[in-house]
């Protein structure tokens, strides 16, 4: 991963008449990063991606790709960008192979039979290459969408909700594929999602937006370290534990007891200190399970308990 900026967005806004879909959004994505672009449904993620891909015109602001200012007429940059925006919609009357051939040709990709079949195999569509897309499930279309975004070997891959419709196995395969592309091939992945766990486990950096505004942006690890999380301590001698809690200042961690487990509310860097303290006080710890999730973090910073995230 390098600090070469691949995407630089400054003060990007989009108004639909009086409705502000995106409001002064700024972010930077560096080379080799998997950048999580998070927010609940309707937060402005897809509108931002549509502006980045020239599908809609920004009301104001600038977008730079690979250090160069991007305008709608600048099409050459799309040789270096692969994208999957929202639903993976294809020509239903054509086969996956034909669809990939079609979009690959437009992208200037190697559309030899060998390469197309290799790409379809890579996304797990081997054996169904020549089936018409109308016979595909949403998950299969999603895989084809990802193949379509990668077929011309782009440097930057922009994926909007790429694991929608995938089963857990499919989600893992796509996640592994994206991590591999970033780590081993140096590709930059811009990943929009409202599935927080997906981003938490994949993204190196992230931005969270809500109601068209950027709420927070930074390295995933840094952001999560400052966030509070629940940690479950399972102990073999709960009575000792109860005594320690009663006679120490541990109560400040908002401890609750649930089925023999003691749930602490901690910041990430506090966990080790608590473990050490408990061991010193002869608590026999059976397990420590962090229950931290970006979901909690998201709720903390947005204050929106009803946001459509999972």
């Amino acid at each position, binding site marked *: 991963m390098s600090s070469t900026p691949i995407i630089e967005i400054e003060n990007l806004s989009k108004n639909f008449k009086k409705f502000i879909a995106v409001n002064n959004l700024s972010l930077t994505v560096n080379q080799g990063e998997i950048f999580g672009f998070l927010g609940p449904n309707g937060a402005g993620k897809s509108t931002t991606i*549509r502006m980045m*891909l*020239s*599908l*809609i*015109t920004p009301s104001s602001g600038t977008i730079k790709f690979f250090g160069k200012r991007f305008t*709608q*007429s600048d*099409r*050459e*940059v*799309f*040789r270096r*960008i692969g*994208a999957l*925006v*929202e*639903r993976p*919609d*294809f*020509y*239903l*009357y*054509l086969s996956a192979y*034909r669809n990939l051939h*079609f*979009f690959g*040709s*437009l*992208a*200037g990709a190697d559309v030899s039979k060998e390469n197309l079949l290799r790409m379809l195999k890579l996304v797990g569509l081997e054996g169904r290459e020549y089936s018409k897309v109308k016979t595909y499930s949403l998950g299969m279309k999603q895989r084809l969408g990802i193949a*379509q975004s990668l077929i011309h070997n782009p440097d930057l891959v922009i994926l909007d909700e790429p694991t929608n419709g995938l089963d857990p196995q499919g989600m893992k395969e796509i996640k592994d594929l994206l991590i591999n592309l970033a780590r081993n091939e140096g590709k930059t992945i811009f990943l929009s999602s409202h599935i927080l766990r997906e981003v938490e486990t994949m993204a190196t950096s992230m931005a969270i937006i809500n109601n068209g505004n950027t709420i927070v942006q930074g390295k995933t690890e840094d952001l999560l370290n400052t966030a509070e999380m629940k940690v479950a301590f399972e102990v073999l001698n709960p009575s000792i534990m109860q005594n320690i809690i009663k006679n120490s200042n541990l109560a400040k961690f908002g401890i609750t007891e649930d089925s023999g487990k003691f749930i602490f509310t901690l910041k990430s860097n506090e966990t080790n200190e608590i473990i050490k303290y408990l061991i010193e006080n002869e608590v026999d710890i059976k397990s420590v399970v962090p229950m931290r999730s970006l979901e909690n973090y998201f709720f903390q910073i947005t204050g929106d308990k009803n946001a459509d995230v999972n």
Partner: protein
Amino acid sequence: MLMLIKLELFKIFSKWRTYIGFISIFVLIPLIHIALYFEGKKLIELGTQALSGGFNLSGNLLNGFMATRIILQSFYVHIPLLVALVAGDMLAGEATSGTYRFLLTKPISRLQIISAKYISGVIYVASLLVILMILSLGVGILIFGTGDMIIVNSNITILKEADSLWRFYYSFGYAFLSMLVVYSFAFMFSAFVENSIGPIMATMSLIIVFSILNILGGGVFVHIQPFLFTTHMQNWKGLFDNPIDYAEINTSVAIMIAHIVLLTTLTFVYFTKKDINS
């Protein structure tokens, strides 16, 4: 650009709806030929009844030229529907299927994409008319042979056999131009909406309404009629007058070309600037 046109043509000819036009031509023209084969003589007698008292009509009156003219006349309503069926889907179909999002995020400008689509559609219209010409004129001549052509309108025109064939080539060229106007309307409507039924219905409604205005005589309608493209679409019949009123034909051709240029420009400008929300 050639690659784009090739890909667009591949898409057009991969759709079932494209073949509706060809199938209907392949079915209807032989049906008309069969009907003319068995009932054509009666039809000719009926058409020339008024002349039979003063003229001696001889020779092969029911010939391939006559059959083709009858087919052209009957297909002037049918072909626009077949054109609109494909043109109405060319842009709106991408919006409906959601494929704009892939199509317009490639290293190709919107102008190139819409140009390729427009040209591919023009090729479809041309192929439809070529098939129509081969089936009506070619097969018509094979079945009925050639001969002089009697055209009964407000006056009677008799065209010599040698003077007929070129008029058909011109009239198919004229038909092509007329259908391009229809195509341009449907294509424009297709850019405005996200459902392909709308442009087809809008185009056909426009043709029907304008055709009704064409047949309404007197009053304000007389002043409107010269501006309706349907008025000029019908002027292909003037190519079978003797002598041909070239001034009128040229005016109609110019007005149709102006329609095509204006509609296409509007469509291209709108498409290159529109926000893709589908």
